[in-house]
């Protein structure tokens, strides 16, 4: 009995030591082959072949591919990659394996279409994915919204965006704002207001954190674009009236009846350059802003919060 106890203690000690040692050596092997755990490889890129190989467990495989797509995008975005070549095939495979995986279509609309570094810059693939989603989920009004969204935001194709929103408006229980969006697309008026409405709807109708953060970042950038546009118009009006540029932001706001210290959504006051140009103080905080950026500034690809 005593002998058995001794052997058990030695075996247990060996087990613990070997486990720790094997983990340590494995960690060193990973250091020797750093690319091994970061392989961005699509072993099989045919959804049909994968469906056959899944032996009927295509739902599970779709979930795996969906997770891979999110991780692929998240990892590359986090590392400031400027291309996302596998995103479209990964989403396509996930969607074909499970055509009712609606979140994959939403993700595609948000991150396939926008230009790099904030997306894959493949609006055609995004549209194809949306159309496939609509074909398989004709009663899902959010997919029509996503389709119209891509046409409007990324391609500025107003007739097609209006058509997508109008098709979505016909779906039973569709959100009423689709009809409104269809009308606004037809006359493409009130750009800021329309864009704000769309990003807000994206935020409210999605549960995916990445998509929601992306929407928040766009809403913040929209507010900056609108503020800078109004302030720049005020500078122009001031110049036309007085024949000179305002000497300070205070003079401009006092003369134009604006709030005394106009500030961006983070509370940093806008600044005015000697040439009368309105600029953001911390442009890196607004990666999607298109106005108020210093000349030659390159936006940094990042989301508002560090979710990666």
């Amino acid at each position, binding site marked *: 009995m005593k*002998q058995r106890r001794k052997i058990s203690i030695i075996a247990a000690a*060996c087990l613990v030591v070997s486990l720790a040692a094997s983990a340590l050596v494995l960690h060193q092997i990973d250091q020797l082959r750093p690319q091994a*755990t970061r392989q961005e490889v699509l072993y099989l890129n045919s959804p049909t072949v994968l469906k056959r190989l899944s032996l009927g467990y295509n739902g599970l495989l779709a979930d795996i591919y969906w997770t891979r797509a999110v*991780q692929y995008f998240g990892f590359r975005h986090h590392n400031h990659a400027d291309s996302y070549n596998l995103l479209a095939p990964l989403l396509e495979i996930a969607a074909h394996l499970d055509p009712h995986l609606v979140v994959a279509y939403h993700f595609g609309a948000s991150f396939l279409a926008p230009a790099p570094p904030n997306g894959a810059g493949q609006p055609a693939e995004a549209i194809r994915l949306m159309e496939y989603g609509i074909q398989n989920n004709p009663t899902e009004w959010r997919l029509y919204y996503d389709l119209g969204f891509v046409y409007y935001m990324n391609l500025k194709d107003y007739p097609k965006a209006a058509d997508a929103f109008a098709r979505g408006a016909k779906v039973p229980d569709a959100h009423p704002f689709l009809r409104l969006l269809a009308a606004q697309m037809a006359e493409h008026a009130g750009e800021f207001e329309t864009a704000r409405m769309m990003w807000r709807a994206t935020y409210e109708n999605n549960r995916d954190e990445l998509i929601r953060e992306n929407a928040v970042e766009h809403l913040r950038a929209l507010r900056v674009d609108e503020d800078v546009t109004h302030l720049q118009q005020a500078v122009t009006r001031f110049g036309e009236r007085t024949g000179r540029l305002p000497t300070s932001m205070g003079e401009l706001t006092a003369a134009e009846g604006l709030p005394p210290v106009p500030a961006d959504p983070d509370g940093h006051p806008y600044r005015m350059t000697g040439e009368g140009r309105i600029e953001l103080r911390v442009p890196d905080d607004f990666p999607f802003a298109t106005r108020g950026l210093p000349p030659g500034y390159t936006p940094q690809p990042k989301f508002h919060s560090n979710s990666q």
Partner: protein
Amino acid sequence: MNSRIVHIATNTFREAVRDRVLYNLIAFALLLSGAAVLVGQISIEIEKLVVINLGLTAVSLFGIVIAIFIGIGLVSKEIEKRTLYTVLSRPVRRWEFIVGKFFGLAGTLVVNTFFMAIGVFAALLYVSHHLVKSDALILVALYFIILEFVIICSLALLFSSFSSPLLSAVFAFSLFVIGSFAEDLRGFAAMAHGFTRWVATGAAYLVPNFSALNVVSSIAHGEPVTAALILHNTLYALFYAAMALSGAVLIFEHRNLK
């Protein structure tokens, strides 16, 4: 080495030979000679590549099947046939029985791999008419395959020490499949957050890592393997096998055999 362990290992080897395990070499020889003749006729400039890939993959798969299907029965078969009681009634300790069985099975696989390696080199010689210096890299791939067998043997024995042969086969084969994707698993773990990251990382380090041992494809393209990788893979296989064997000993020591 302890003479009792040597005796058990020798008997395990003999038993495997008696069970006609080495007959798989005939199937291997047929496969490889058929492939060598075939690729010589239909492949253009990749005959050598095909023979190396096919040959080494076959060595690995044949060996893994043998390791799993022999390994899972090493303990349970002895209990079923009641030969275990005869062995343990002699001055043989339980841990010696487990370790002896492990060396016997590993030895069988090494001998098997040796003959298969001769087959691979013969097929290579047939398709390329001569051997070059870089072909020696195949020996590294074969060595890594043997390390793979060492891990699989220890796992099969671990499962065999407490489970039925069928379940042991399922467990061992599942771990082989998971272990082949171990690097992807660690990649996923690295991208997770919080508690999930800890659990995923723990699981990723617990399952065997066969990805680093699989260098068949790079060897086929003549890419060298660093000495550091050979050393680390050797240490990893030895530590992992020691861990699984310790687990098997621990379980078997406390198993009620009545």
